[in-house]
């Protein structure tokens, strides 16, 4: 709620809803007639829709921080992974990873593109469905992770409904411990 209207509009414009401009126009009109808080506090159905678009955009960025699994090409200091982004959020996602691993080149496959960080810049190349041939590294740490993940489960507390709510199915194929 502490987000300003202009920050919210910038977020909503990243959403993939084809009607986003129409919704933004409606909330701007309401803000003029009923006050800024009316819109930012989501009092009307349109303001709620607008708020939901912002939330969905931020949720996508958050999930990309959570669920992308990276592989390392050690000799080239490259960390790469693949994920699904439905909104225009790649710059926010890349910023997270480059801020976390500045010594590495980050390479994210978000089909049909691959995005590569180099210093402060991000390059993009269309790859469609093509596989990218990177040196295959034998990675014992992946096996460690799979075992660790398996061992964290407490059978006495099984709750599949909660599990599915927390990890939407569309992301499963990117998560080695689940797919």
């Amino acid at each position, binding site marked *: *709620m502490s987000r300003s209207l202009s920050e919210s509009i910038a977020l909503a414009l990243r959403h993939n809803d084809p009607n986003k401009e129409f919704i933004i126009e409606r909330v701007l009109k309401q803000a003029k007639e009923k006050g800024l808080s009316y819109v930012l*506090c989501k009092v009307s159905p349109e303001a709620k829709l607008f708020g939901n678009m912002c939330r969905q955009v931020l949720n996508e960025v*958050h999930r990309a921080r*959570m669920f992308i699994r990276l592989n390392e090409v050690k000799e080239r200091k490259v960390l790469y992974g693949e994920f699904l982004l439905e909104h225009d959020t790649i710059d926010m996602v890349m910023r997270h990873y480059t801020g*976390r*691993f500045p010594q590495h080149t980050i390479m994210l496959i978000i089909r049909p593109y691959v995005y590569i960080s180099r210093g402060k810049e991000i390059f993009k190349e269309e790859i469609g469905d093509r596989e990218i041939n990177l040196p295959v590294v034998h990675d014992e740490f992946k096996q460690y992770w799979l075992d660790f993940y398996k061992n964290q489960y*407490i059978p006495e*507390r099984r709750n*599949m409904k909660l*599990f599915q709510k927390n990890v939407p199915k569309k992301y499963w194929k990117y998560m080695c411990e689940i797919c």
Partner: protein
Amino acid sequence: METEKKLEILGAAAKYDVCASTCGPVINSRGRDTIGSVTRSGICHSFTQDGRCVSLLKVLLTNTCKNNCQYCVNRRSNDFQRTEFESEELAHLFIEMYKRNYVEGLFLSSGVKNSTAHTMQKMIETVEILRFKYRYIGYIHLKMLPGTSEDLVNRAAELSDRLSINLECPNPDRLQLIAKEKDFKKDLIKPITHAQHALRAGKLKSGITTQFVVGAAKESDSEILFTSNWLYKQRDLRRAYFSAYIPLDTETPPPLIREHRLYQSDFLMRFYGFELKDFIFEANGNLNLKYDPKFVYAVKNRDKFPVEINKAPFENLLKVPGIGPTAARRIYRARKEYRFTQNSELKNLGVVMKRAAPFLLINGRKAGEFYEQISLGEHCAGFAA
């Protein structure tokens, strides 16, 4: 023993520690010769089939322990395989898992091998390797072992984001029933006091937490909430966690809903302005299992309801079932420029109207009917601790 096997044993042994938070002051490695970052909102990296989040590499340094706490798998008398990580081995393992984005940080606990000071030193050594050799600046949660000295707590605070120690029981009498070798004040409260000093000196970024095991010592909810409330007020505790006791033999476990009710009450104390005296306990000192504590409060205090949504003070809005802190803030802010007239407006901004309507007036009109018939059970009494 191979690292893989050690991780299997020492990871599984740490899974009952609940704290999975990874939030803290924002920090990243951009423009620095370091690795890692901390985000404001915290990040879970996966979820297990019990719905719990996996965000930290939660491991024990060793599962060897000289103590014999009755509820713990690592207790001395339990006959099973013991092992231990070397500090460098664990630091390397962690950093490789972090780079692959499997985990958001390290959670390091341990059994007490030889002595508290010896084991705590080794835990600190592991964190030093991460901070200085691997130049890792991300999130670390370090457990304080029972009886950790002030010097070691200070060093641990300088190196990690969060410190914790599990009280497990709410008072000395209960602790004596299940962990005879531990002294509640000397071994558990004192390290928290040291950590509080470190926190106040600005050494600890993400605060101090603790955990209670619910139902292991036949304690009541009122005892647990009394102690957690004391810790919030007197020891600057950031958060208490509750974990329903999973019996190691044939005992009946406590109902999981009890743990849930404790979390609800804890949230009410931390974010909704509830005081201990506001909770209604049953004759046995436990919370009502059928209804949540906020609803019980509202039904028992019906003279305080309904509240007028356009006028009620912020703290009264927070007492209405179905209104959380976010919705209360939105109502408070929006009504400065606008007068609510419809149920649907409140629903849009996040009020759960099915729960809230009986307790609200909207512009002088009842938003819903009050529950005339509700029975909370025969034994509802006031706070009894």
